[in-house]
């Protein structure tokens, strides 16, 4: 974990409510896809946890949805504005278990961490299948970016306005074979995936956080392997340990 100042390079809407923010700064504490950062915003007491979508030595990319006052404020920030960010938080996804053709399932704002995960898997010579779920065509983002990685991308929308009509589970059930699964998204989706997947897998959870780095016990949940802090021992949990 590291605390440092980042400078906003870009902050643009991808859809009516989802923004991409690119920041420059010290990313050295980030060690895995599926980790998150915790962002201090002027006028708000708690930091806002946001997944790492992508990063390199000196830039960090996050995708966030405006859902409340904090993310509303983020959407008003401008290039050159500076943000105090804690980086390198959480365990992140373990790609060692993936097998050759893992399926990566992102729902809504669960899509961002899948991007860096897919990139890593491709770099490791694997062939991930990506399934992205949205409500409707207008809410779809990052389809092209995933395609540019050379991976197979399936879209599911609740209203069928693009891709498969239905849920990500419908797509996953229709896949002929996959070696493992990784997912991030709303809890009902995670649960449905846990039920319908035929392999082991890793699921990323969201929880309201006090600190985001393991100090306050604000985010503890019970698992079959004992109590875990979503922020430090998670946000990624193994399918087998989760108590629904």
């Amino acid at each position, binding site marked *: 974990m590291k*605390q440092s100042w980042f400078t906003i390079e870009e902050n643009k809407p991808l859809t009516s409510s989802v923004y991409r923010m690119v920041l420059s700064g010290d990313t050295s504490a980030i060690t895995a896809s599926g980790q998150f950062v915790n962002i201090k915003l002027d006028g708000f*007491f708690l930091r806002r946890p946001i997944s790492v979508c992508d990063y390199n030595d000196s830039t960090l990319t996050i995708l966030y949805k405006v859902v409340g006052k904090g993310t509303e404020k983020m959407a008003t920030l401008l290039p050159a504005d500076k943000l105090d960010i804690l980086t390198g938080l959480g365990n992140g996804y373990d790609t060692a278990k993936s097998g050759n053709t893992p399926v990566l399932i992102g729902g809504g704002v669960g899509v961002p961490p899948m991007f860096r995960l897919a990139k890593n898997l491709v770099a490791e010579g694997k062939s991930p299948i990506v399934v992205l779920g949205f409500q409707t065509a207008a809410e779809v983002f990052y389809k092209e970016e995933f395609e540019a990685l050379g991976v197979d991308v399936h879209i599911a929308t609740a209203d069928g306005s693009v891709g498969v009509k239905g849920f990500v589970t419908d797509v996953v059930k229709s896949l002929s074979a996959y070696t493992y699964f990784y997912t991030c998204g709303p809890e009902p989706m995670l649960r449905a995936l846990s039920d319908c997947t035929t392999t082991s897998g890793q699921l990323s959870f969201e*929880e*309201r956080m006090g*600190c985001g780095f*393991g100090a306050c016990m604000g985010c503890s949940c019970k698992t079959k392997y004992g*109590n875990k802090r979503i922020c430090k021992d998670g946000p990624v949990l193994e399918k087998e340990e989760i108590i629904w």
Partner: protein
Amino acid sequence: MVNNLNTKVTLSGLTLDNPVIPASGTFGFGYEFAELYDINILGSFSFKGTTREPRFGNDLPRIAECTSGLINSVGLQNPGIDKVISEELPKMRQVFHKPVIANISGFSVDEYAYSCEKIDKEDQVGIIEVNVSCPNVHHGGMSFGTSPEAAAEVTRAVKAVTTKPVYIKLSPNVADIASIAKACEDAGADGISLINTLMGMRINLKTQKPVIANKMGGFSGSAIFPVAVRMVYQVYEAVNIPVIGMGGVSSAEDVIEMMLAGATAVQVGAANLIDPFACKNIIEDLPTVMQKYGITDLKEIIGGAHK
């Protein structure tokens, strides 16, 4: 010129290099923070509230944001006194080499006494801090800290089985904090820690339900600082034992204000959660701020506002 400044303070014979102490529940057993900086720069720290039995604590969500503060309802999650002694303290010893403050909670007088007697035997424990904000399961669930009698009873029971200085940590959710502090002093307390969290609640407008699963929780952070300063001031007038002040402290200025109100040492809670370097920054800022206000020896300003 910063060399001539003295930041040392003494709590019941225990001399601290400086008065800055992370507050219980916001610093775990220290090792999360030891990854970030050498925590031996701290005056001391108060470890996570420990109970006789292991506790998972309350359901999630446990955290709600507030203006200039947060509500927590962690519910005293801890592995229980035995595991704290067998597992947490050895890990803590690797990273922290000064006397530590043992924060003990309980739901009956016996439970407090049991845990305090055990922790009293641990070499690294310098002070036992008894959190009386917990509900008394034998008396309708009102917190021990809301009645002078109940707080005194806990104090007596703990003092009977311990040898180390016992500080009673008071709840601010009372009408007359001074009378409770006085009752603890009369019952043998060696010092008073205050304040614990104010009871608070937030409601989620989308779900129309309380944000916190447990409905209410403990409100702390900079928002509560004026209440904390007031109570420290009142307790300083009421007792002759040292006071550890806390509640909303987040800067070296706040430390000095608490000490002027009457605190011998100062704890920092919520500030650690949003800025893991909060205590380090405060300690590093102290000399500059002391100079700004013409203070050369910190201990000389304790209770200064009462003059």
